[in-house]
């Protein structure tokens, strides 16, 4: 803290995204809007993983026709690939369950599907 406060715009964008996602999850009642909030949360975490591995003035870590410069870190990009595929799988399962709840109870409000029967 001796050189002043650093001016990181990407980390600020990640904080705003995660904050908006939590506000949507807490305050909305429609089921499809809940699913949208979860998807925004997953995108915010993926953005955070990529921006952790940037080096100043960097190029992509690929050796085919490389331009001149320092290379960025390749490991956070590999972890982000896995995280994106898992987010897609969770989104597909959540949307099919929303379709079944709509067929069973007749509306997409989350209060109608709260009572357990049989």
């Amino acid at each position, binding site marked *: 803290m001796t050189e002043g406060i650093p001016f990181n715009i990407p*980390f600020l964008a990640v904080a705003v995204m995660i904050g908006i996602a939590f506000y949507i999850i807490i305050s909305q009642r429609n089921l499809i809007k809940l699913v949208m909030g979860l998807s925004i949360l997953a995108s915010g975490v993926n953005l955070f993983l990529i921006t952790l591995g940037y080096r100043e003035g960097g190029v992509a870590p690929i050796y085919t026709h490389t331009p001149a410069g320092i290379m960025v870190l390749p490991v956070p990009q590999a972890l982000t690939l896995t995280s994106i595929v898992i987010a897609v799988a969770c989104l597909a399962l959540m949307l099919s369950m929303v379709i079944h709840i709509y067929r069973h109870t007749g509306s997409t409000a989350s209060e109608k599907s709260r009572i357990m029967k049989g």
Partner: protein
Amino acid sequence: MAVSLSIFIGFLIATAFLIHPFGYPPSEMDDYIIENAQSETGANNAVTSVVFDYRGFDTLGEATILFAAVTGVVMLFRRKKLSRIKP
């Protein structure tokens, strides 16, 4: 509920300023991978060699998760007999 949400968002924004400055990550593990990926794996692409060679177990776990999710979705939408479109 609004109080706890605003405390949480304030904590997130404070963390965004206290983390390391953007562009200078404090890590030395990736220097080894950038220098030795071409001679050990033989691939020009460092990201693919990390995904399939240095960290192959993560890719195996992710393939399993994708398989389980596709099985779950197809199982949820089974039908007993084929319906027909009315003209």
